[in-house]
């Protein structure tokens, strides 16, 4: 943090000549903030703030942004990748599992590696969110639950490790996280009755180093939260499908855990269902659990807690630095946690919430289940979801993409587990419930059918000191876009409508917008080459890169 502030003060745009290409060492990853011209991890750094120290583009010149190039993906799936940029080269994925190495200045492709997943059955799209890098290797987690290492210069595969059995519903969609000499991934499959886990692999060989099951087995602490003595825990979900964060000083890595299964029928899995809907803090070397915090015990609503853990070092009034974690949860509450000891600091609803009336002193929700046929707020896609949030040390604000005033009606039903088949436990749309309000379908349909329960999208700025909304930028449609903030107090985001806009991070005022014509379903990044700052974002099937007019 101190280094970052110093850089802002200098107002220096760091430039590494394009040809000075070097290996990405673990040391470089630790000190990613020292080279803001690069984007070395999914969220731009281990603190996952998705904040760039580059400040060439600012409020005074943002109107001069122009499109530098577009890369058209050959996939029609949602483009959810967050590119890496290393010394003038960009590495990213196209759905489902193609890796592209590109000149990040001219947008021309060096090489492409295409992997075709076998027997994959992802719940929600054949997507991939990006890569990790260490040394000369890129790492991709595949839809059929393999982990592949590629040579960064040639795209040739170096090793491939079978992480889990895709035929039983395991999949991987996240960007891996490199910690020291290991590559860490988690598995998706919460809609298929998998038993989730996080696992680390040796970066040079692909050999498994440690594995943490997100559902404790018999005899392990927490197993008792799968009550009833049955086998609910074996098919209890708790997947991991977004990239975690890391505090090198504490040597703890933080990961958000997804929903218990079956999704909507908690009666089939009585108890708190640890560690579903938790954040877990694991020893980075061993995978040992150091602490956990559960956001939604015995979840009825599919409130995955996979959101990106945002780490901040916050100066307290007495001058000490608080090691905090900020979390805009899918369940509609914004949390501040102590990331060292794992304690609950505060929690505040940021959207309409009616499934819980409050949080108690330990952060546990005081639940208020809604009558059958009545909408629950937030609805199944949550107040937010997997869209990357951002924190700006400059403004001291946390930013997230929210779905406001959005509800859904839950109809639980008994689910029978069958390996490799959906294991949902009901449905979320009304069938013959008298007087039930009309809700739009998942695709939302025609705009005129969006009634009050459909909700709308917003970028929200939250003050972590109070949990209060500082400002919000409202959008007509809901949003799947992540957020990037800059040291020059710009905020870049977009939405399903196909706009990419720059807001003033201090007050939410619209400064600039571009019509990209396709849904934004990824977090923007920023990098620099030869003295020029760029902002990259994917929309529809194109990856768009902007910079100031020459």
């Amino acid at each position: 943090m101190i280094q970052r502030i110093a850089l802002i003060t200098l107002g220096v745009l760091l430039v590494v000549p394009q040809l000075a290409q070097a290996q990405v060492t673990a040391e470089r990853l630790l000190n990613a903030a020292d080279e803001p011209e690069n984007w070395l991890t999914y969220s731009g750094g281990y603190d996952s703030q998705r904040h760039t120290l580059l400040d060439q583009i600012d409020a005074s010149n943002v109107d001069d942004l122009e499109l530098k190039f577009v890369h058209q993906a050959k996939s029609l799936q949602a483009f959810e990748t967050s590119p890496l940029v290393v010394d003038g080269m960009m590495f990213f994925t196209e759905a489902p599992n193609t890796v592209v190495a590109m000149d990040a200045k001219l947008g021309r492709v060096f090489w492409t590696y295409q992997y075709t997943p076998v027997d994959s059955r992802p719940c929600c799209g054949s997507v991939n969110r990006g890569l990790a890098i260490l040394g000369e290797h890129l790492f991709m987690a595949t839809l059929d639950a393999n982990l592949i290492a590629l040579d960064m210069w040639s795209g040739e595969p170096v090793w491939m490790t079978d992480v889990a059995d895709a035929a039983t519903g395991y999949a991987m969609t996240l960007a891996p996280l490199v910690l020291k000499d290991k590559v860490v991934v988690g598995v998706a499959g919460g809609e298929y009755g998998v038993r989730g886990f996080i696992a680390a692999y040796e970066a040079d060989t692909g050999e498994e180093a440690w594995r943490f099951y997100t559902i404790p087995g018999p005899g392990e602490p927490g197993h008792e939260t799968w009550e009833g003595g049955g086998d609910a825990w074996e098919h209890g979900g708790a997947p991991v499908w977004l990239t975690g964060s890391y505090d090198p000083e504490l040597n703890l890595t933080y990961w958000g855990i997804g929903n218990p299964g079956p999704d909507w029928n908690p009666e089939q899995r009585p108890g708190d269902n640890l560690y579903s809907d938790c954040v877990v803090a694991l020893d980075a070397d061993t995978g040992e659990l150091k602490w956990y915090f559960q956001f939604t015990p015995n979840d009825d609503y599919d409130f995955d807690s996979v959101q990106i853990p945002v780490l901040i070092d916050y100066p307290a009034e007495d001058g000490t630095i608080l090691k905090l974690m900020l979390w805009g949860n899918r369940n509609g509450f914004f949390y501040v946690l102590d990331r060292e000891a794992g304690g609950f600091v505060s929690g505040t609803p940021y959207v309409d919430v009616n499934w819980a009336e409050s949080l108690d002193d330990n952060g546990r929700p005081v639940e208020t289940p809604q009558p059958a046929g009545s909408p629950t707020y937030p609805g199944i896609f949550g107040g937010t979801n997997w869209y990357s949030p951002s924190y700006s040390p400059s403004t001291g604000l946390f930013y997230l993409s929210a779905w406001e005033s959005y509800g859904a009606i839950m109809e639980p039903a008994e689910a029978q587990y069958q390996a490799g088949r959906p294991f949902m436990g009901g449905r979320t749309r009304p069938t013959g419930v008298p007087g039930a309000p009309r809700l739009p379908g998942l695709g939302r349909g025609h705009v005129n059918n969006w009634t009050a329960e459909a909700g709308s999208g917003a970028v929200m700025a939250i003050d972590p000191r109070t949990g209060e909304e500082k400002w919000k930028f409202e959008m007509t449609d809901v949003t799947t876009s992540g957020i990037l903030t800059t040291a020059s107090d710009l905020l870049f985001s977009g939405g399903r409508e196909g706009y990419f806009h720059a807001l003033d991070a201090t007050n939410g005022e619209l400064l600039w917008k571009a019509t990209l014509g396709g849904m934004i379903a990824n977090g923007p990044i920023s990098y620099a080459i030869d003295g020029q700052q760029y902002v990259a974002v994917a929309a529809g099937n194109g990856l768009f890169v902007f910079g100031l007019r020459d």
Partner: protein
Amino acid sequence: MVCLVLVASLGAQRSVQAGQEHLGQYAQADIQFGLRVYSTTCTTCHGATGDGVPGIDLRVGQFARAPSDQQLSRLIRTGIPGTAMPPGEYSEPELAGLVAYLRTMGTLDLGDVVVGDGERGQAIYNGQGDCARCHRVNGQGSRVAPDLSRVGANRTAGALESSLLDPTGSMFPINRPLRVVTQDGTVYTGRRLNEDTYTVQLMDQNDRLRSLEKSTLREYTLLTTSTMPEYGDILNAQEISDVVAYLLSLRGLED
């Protein structure tokens, strides 16, 4: 200005829900339409009074093979294998009408049933009703309100009747009219075709496509009331039935 926005209603759902046991739970228009369908397709075997097949009296209104309306509807469609009851191809409005009529025929005073006349209905549609001012049928009329060329294929008689009598109460969200006023005072009303954070697209009252930036608008209102008149104030019961009969005859390319 009279602007007729004909939309489907909850009456459609009411008329086919299971467990309705009493006369009055079925829309009169569905019963009327059911009688018409029954008269042309069922009387050969079952007779006008429902007792034409030995041992079967449809007037009881309850059937062991089909306790619920959904089951009765399915039975009419699939027939009863191994018996003389054949399968038949019926539209949803026809099925809803048949169910309504079969459930009520035993207690019905046929003197109450006003069967509409489609030809008279068409004349009312084009004349006194002034429906084409806003609606379009087979390429004729305005585009401001929903095109009715196929309305008979996907709306029940009861739903159509409800829409005529209570347009606002029967209005689907998708038919909510939009009203915008630009900075220079120009007013556009019409159908919202698309909208996003910065812009809105609509079909205006003059059948023209408009795309407007919200920053240029003085007013923007999504209306919750229909601009269509309540036709119970304009037409009598027979005329309403006639219009319903005409609308039910609109089946698009099927005709």
